């Protein structure tokens, strides 16, 4: 049975060789369709992989709470100081109120100017605890990172990020040097105890979470932040004064298990709403929800791509059908002879179906081979844009610049099966036409 199948395919191949160009064009049609499926899916997977990585970096078991400055109209009083956001009481209430909580990491952040000797850098000044480094995958490149003891001792020490170190100290070792941090119109001197490794900035995810550049940070103990700078931060900007009173900029809550995220976030939202009312001065971001949304989006994207690619396969199928119809007409006499020699209608159907399957199968295999060229092709295109069209390159979003297509195994299998399926479907009509021909008419055909 199998042997016979192989034999039929071999014969089909042989008779297709009689019209190489024609067969080649039919194969090309399928090839393009199959390649399109694989490439489009690979690009889609690549994009969504990036998004998922970013979300996973946030931690799927995390719930991220941020202080949000209310819009100007709703700011209370005539005071130029706006009081808003998460409080230390919120922090304590969350720790007590959420039973599944593993930890909550508080953080306070302002923008500030830091000086070392004559050099100066605009930085994000972050008051944090030891866990901050952990949840953001920050590790030390030199010296050490902040520890629990630093929080207790409330000393003027700082860990600086890679770019901050470079702009303040060039390529000198910053360890043991001092920096001056200006805030609230006073300047404090801090001892640099460590420097973090540089880290890819996280891109923004949808509209719910802005990206974060970890390379221009200065980290000091949260307790030091509170005693040296305080909750109220005033900045003078071109004459006018602006101020905010914020206890905590962010609290990152971690629960033990994925299944606890939903409940925990509900409790937190209820808790916070009770004390913040309708001020709208905080936001809750749930990476797991984002992950689900991204997954949804990816699926929808894939469906769309498969539809597009399916259309091109359909067109390829029409090409095959066209060629098979021509072949059948051309070989009418041969069909008559075979019928006279004892071929049944089924035999004739098999013969022509095998030919279409060889055509579409070859197209499928060639398409899969071209499918694997997706990465080099993508790399080549990006390289050309980066080196020859730098203007266009700069205007591309980082998602595209760093795009790495991921070839999905299922897309290869699906594309190949669909191509053979297309061959069968589009070959059926010409084959049936051949089989139903009147043998005598066929024999008489010129």
């Amino acid at each position, binding site marked *: 049975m199998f*042997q*016979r199948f192989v*034999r039929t395919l071999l014969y089909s191949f042989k*008779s297709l060789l*009689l019209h190489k160009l024609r067969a080649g064009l039919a194969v090309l049609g399928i090839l393009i369709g199959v390649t399109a499926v694989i490439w489009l899916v690979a690009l889609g997977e690549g994009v969504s992989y990036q998004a998922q990585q970013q979300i996973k970096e946030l931690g799927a078991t995390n719930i991220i709470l941020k202080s949000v400055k209310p819009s100007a109209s709703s700011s209370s009083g005539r005071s130029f100081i706006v009081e808003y956001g998460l409080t230390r009481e919120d922090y304590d209430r969350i720790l007590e109120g959420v039973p599944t909580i593993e930890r909550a990491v508080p953080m306070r952040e302002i923008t500030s100017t830091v000086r070392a000797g004559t050099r100066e850098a605009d930085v994000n000044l972050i008051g944090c605890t030891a866990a901050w480094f952990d949840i953001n995958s920050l590790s030390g490149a030199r010296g050490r990172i902040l520890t629990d003891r630093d929080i207790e001792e409330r000393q003027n020490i700082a860990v600086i990020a890679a770019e901050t170190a470079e702009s303040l100290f060039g390529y000198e070792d910053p360890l043991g040097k001092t920096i001056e941090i200006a805030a609230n119109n006073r300047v404090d001197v801090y001892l640099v105890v460590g420097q973090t490794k540089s880290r890819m900035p996280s891109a923004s995810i949808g509209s719910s979470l802005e990206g974060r550049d970890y390379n221009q940070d200065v980290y000091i103990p949260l307790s030091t932040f509170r005693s040296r700078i305080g909750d109220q931060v005033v900045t003078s900007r071109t004459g006018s004064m602006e101020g905010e009173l914020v206890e905590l900029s962010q609290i990152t809550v971690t629960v033990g298990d994925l299944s606890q995220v939903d409940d925990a976030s509900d409790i937190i939202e209820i808790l916070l709403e009770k004390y913040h009312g309708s001020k709208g001065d905080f936001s809750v971001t749930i990476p797991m929800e984002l992950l689900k949304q991204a997954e949804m989006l990816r699926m929808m994207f894939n469906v769309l791509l498969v539809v597009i690619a399916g259309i091109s396969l359909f067109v390829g199928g029409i090409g095959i059908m066209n060629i098979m119809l021509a072949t059948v007409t051309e070989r009418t*006499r*041969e069909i*008559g*002879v*075979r*019928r*006279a*020699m*004892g*071929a*049944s*209608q*089924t*035999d004739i159907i098999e013969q022509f179906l095998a030919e279409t399957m060889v055509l579409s199968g070859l197209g499928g295999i060639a398409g899969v081979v071209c499918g694997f060229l997706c990465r080099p092709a993508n790399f080549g295109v990006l390289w050309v844009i980066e080196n020859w069209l730098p203007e266009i390159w700069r205007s591309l979003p980082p998602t595209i610049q760093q795009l790495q297509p991921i070839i999905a195994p299922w897309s290869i299998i699906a594309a190949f099966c669909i191509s053979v399926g297309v061959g069968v479907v589009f070959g059926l009509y010409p084959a049936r036409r051949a089989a139903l021909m009147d*043998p*005598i008419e066929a*024999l008489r055909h010129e």
Partner: protein
Amino acid sequence: MELAGQIDDLHKYYYLGNQVVKALRGVTAEFPGGDFVAIMGSSGSGKSTLLNVLGGLDRPTSGRYVIAGNDVSTLTDHELSAIRNKLIGFIFQSYNLISQFTVLENIRMPLSYRPDRPPMTREDIDWCTELALQVGLGDRLDHRPHQLSGGQQQRVAIARALVNGPAIILADEPTGNLDSSTSAEIIEILNRLNAEGRTIIMVTHEPEIAREAKRQIYMKDGLIAGDGIFPG
């Protein structure tokens, strides 16, 4: 003697629009096994039509046709195809070889439609070579039809018709495209096959060729006008 085939009041009509062409109008005949029949008659008298029905390539509009004990009207396409394959060898005026196949491939083609479609074996190939040898083409196995003369092509067609060892050979003007000496060679082969015990039914226009057969049937306007043993 056992009957190779029997036809009874056979009609074959072609419907062209509202016009009816009556190619056969009630033909009755018997073909004993081992017979050698020449069918003669003017052009359009229904000779080819009769032969196609006898070969199971065409189905009559009405009437009975029994071949080797099977009533053709009750057979499915598959069964009828099997009978064509096993029992009947066709030889055509225009040879009808498959042009992209070699001599050997043409000869062995009917083997691929044997019952249950068994794969080709070494013995099968040897047998095809042997047949080519018998018709005098042992040195042309790898040639293609267009590299052969008409007589040679017809011999290939005869070898192809013989490959499944058919009991009946149907030949529609097998010498129609050949000169007289080549025709004589073909007829000699047919005579030999008849001597082996095969039934041969042959359509021809040439009386000298028809004379070689044991029996002649004359057709006129879709009917048998005369049936006789030669010389008689």
